[in-house]
């Protein structure tokens, strides 16, 4: 999801009630000793592992691995090993596919583009969106800021296609049809959704700290950077993760904004080379694998942290 507020499914929302402590493993309370032997167990009552369910979920998770396995084995095959179902393990490894894909898509430049755009968008988003949310959250009683809040939030329901054509023209006019323009657009389009979750979180921060700091003569800026911003760390992690997933994988915005082929991102370059890939499956798959690998590796390393970050965002 996307959604992101604009495109993709990276959107989430705040529930109506506060969490009752967010233990990452859910309500894992030990069952009462001497429980009755009942065949049916509610999720929170049993003390035994439900093996049937475990087996079912493991089996279901194969649906996720099948396409990934298919990608890996195809990328490692030579052209003449193709055919059949495509699921056979390669008889000899064609490492040359990766070299060929690297050369064709100018992988080092493209990956660097994707990385710089993602890092830039995430960093700027965290620094700016949290600040805007703070100003709005602490002044909600003023008509101007309340109006701004609804102004930003209402954009969540504006579909991107209405913007698509004019924005493409506008960025070209302003000379922003490049990586810099992309970063800017991600930061601006993230505002709607990020203000939504940052303000909810800021409202739960007691004001006494700020008041004490102001008595000690701190300016509003000092209060924000020295007190509030550090307190926002959990939400910054959530927003950072979601922004990173959205920006790294986004295809539509680079497609309509980037005019110079040398500014292409990883997803865009797969699209651009589609015509050359059609005759060359194995190189195409090596390229797809290289496009997916960086974020996938990061995710595998930081998996628990990512999941808990996204979960926290949903509960707030």
């Amino acid at each position, binding site marked *: *999801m*996307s*959604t992101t507020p604009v495109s993709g*499914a990276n*959107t*989430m*929302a705040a*529930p*109506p*009630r*506060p969490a009752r402590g*967010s233990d*990452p493993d859910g*309500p894992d309370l030990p069952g009462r000793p001497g429980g009755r032997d*009942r065949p049916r167990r*509610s999720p*929170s009552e049993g*003390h035994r*592992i439900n093996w049937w369910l475990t087996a079912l979920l*493991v089996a279901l*998770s194969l649906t996720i691995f099948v*396409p990934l396995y*298919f990608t890996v084995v195809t990328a490692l095959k030579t052209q003449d090993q193709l055919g059949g179902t*495509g699921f056979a393990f390669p008889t000899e490894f064609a490492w040359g596919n990766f070299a060929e894909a690297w050369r064709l898509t100018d992988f080092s430049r493209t990956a660097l583009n994707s990385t710089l755009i993602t890092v830039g968008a995430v960093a700027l988003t965290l620094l700016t*969106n949290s600040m*805007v949310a703070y100003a*709005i959250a602490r002044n909600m*009683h*003023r008509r101007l800021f309340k109006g*701004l809040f609804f*102004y930003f939030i*209402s*954009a*969540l*329901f*504006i*579909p*991107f296609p*209405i913007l*698509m*054509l004019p924005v493409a*023209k506008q960025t070209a006019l302003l000379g922003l049809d490049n990586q810099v323009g992309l970063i800017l657009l991600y930061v*601006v389009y993230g*505002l709607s959704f990020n203000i939504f979750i940052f303000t*909810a979180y800021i409202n739960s921060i007691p*004001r006494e700290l700020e008041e004490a700091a102001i008595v000690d003569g701190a300016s509003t800026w000092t209060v924000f950077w020295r007190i509030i911003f550090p307190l926002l760390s959990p939400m910054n992690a959530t927003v950072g993760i979601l922004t990173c997933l959205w920006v790294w994988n986004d*295809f*539509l915005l680079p497609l309509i904004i980037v005019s110079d082929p040398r500014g292409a991102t*990883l*997803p865009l370059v797969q*699209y651009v080379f589609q015509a050359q890939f059609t005759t060359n*499956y194995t190189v195409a798959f090596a390229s*797809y694998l290289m496009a*997916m690998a960086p974020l996938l590796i990061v995710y595998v390393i930081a998996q*628990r942290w990512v*999941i808990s970050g*996204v*979960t*926290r965002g*949903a509960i707030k």
Partner: protein
Amino acid sequence: MATTAPRTAGTRTPSAPPPGIRPDRTRLPRAFYWMVLPAVVLFLVFHTIPVLQGVFFSFTDSPGYGEWSFVGVDNYVALFTDPRVIAAYGFTFRFAFLATILVNAFALAVAIGLNARIKFKNTLRGIYFIPNVLSVLVIGYVFQYLFSGAVPTIATALGIDRLSTSILADPQLAWVGILILAVWQATAFNIIIYLAGLQTVPVELYEASSLDGASSWRQFRSITFPMIAGFFTINMVLALKTFLQVFDHIIALTNGGPGTSTESVGVLIYRGGFQGGEYGYQLANAVVFMIVIIAFAAFQLRVLQRREVSA
């Protein structure tokens, strides 16, 4: 528009000013204005103004460059008799409804499973989130090869004639491939949201209801679902909104084909507006689309919130 901001946001703020240091001081520190000013300006320039521009040019015959003149509501009138546009709306809505329902059903079922007493809980959660880490376009190309190569081969071996040719090459079936990819990719994220929701349900409720002899199904219907209704509402609304804008999936799998059988509204606007010289015309299409999406989101929020337990 403000009515569309979900009530469930929990962002209700006291309408009275906070007890300040000096209650008589109503002057706001200037810094707050500086904090929001750049964001407001940029948002105006890159979001609001383009939207207004879009609305403006939807009343012109602009091809996207050069000369243009006003044509009144001609574009809008033409839209309603354009078979390609009508087909795109039909495809988009059929796809979005099915995808929304399937994604939420699967995500809720898997989330409940992942929340039960199972082994490898954290590992499984990590695995189920993987599709959300992948670019739709890139994994979409992988699915394209699966649908056009592996699936027909396997179907032929099993003697299933219906699937012995690529579903993506069949105008009647190509949308199924897009649906499968969309559901596969989007379920991951919704699982995590539902898991977060399930963790907010007090355990005592389950304990009490089991003492009363409630069945699992009854527990789900009377405890679990009402307690996470807020999550369900938000997920449904956002999923529908996202799927109505389907784009990457189609580019990767069918490019709108065969023919124009899998053209979504988003793909049509992109193609006609950028490549077909129909800038003004497709903007009119986008305006109609915007109105439809807003109306749907508002309607959904209203209907689904009525079902929620009042917190």
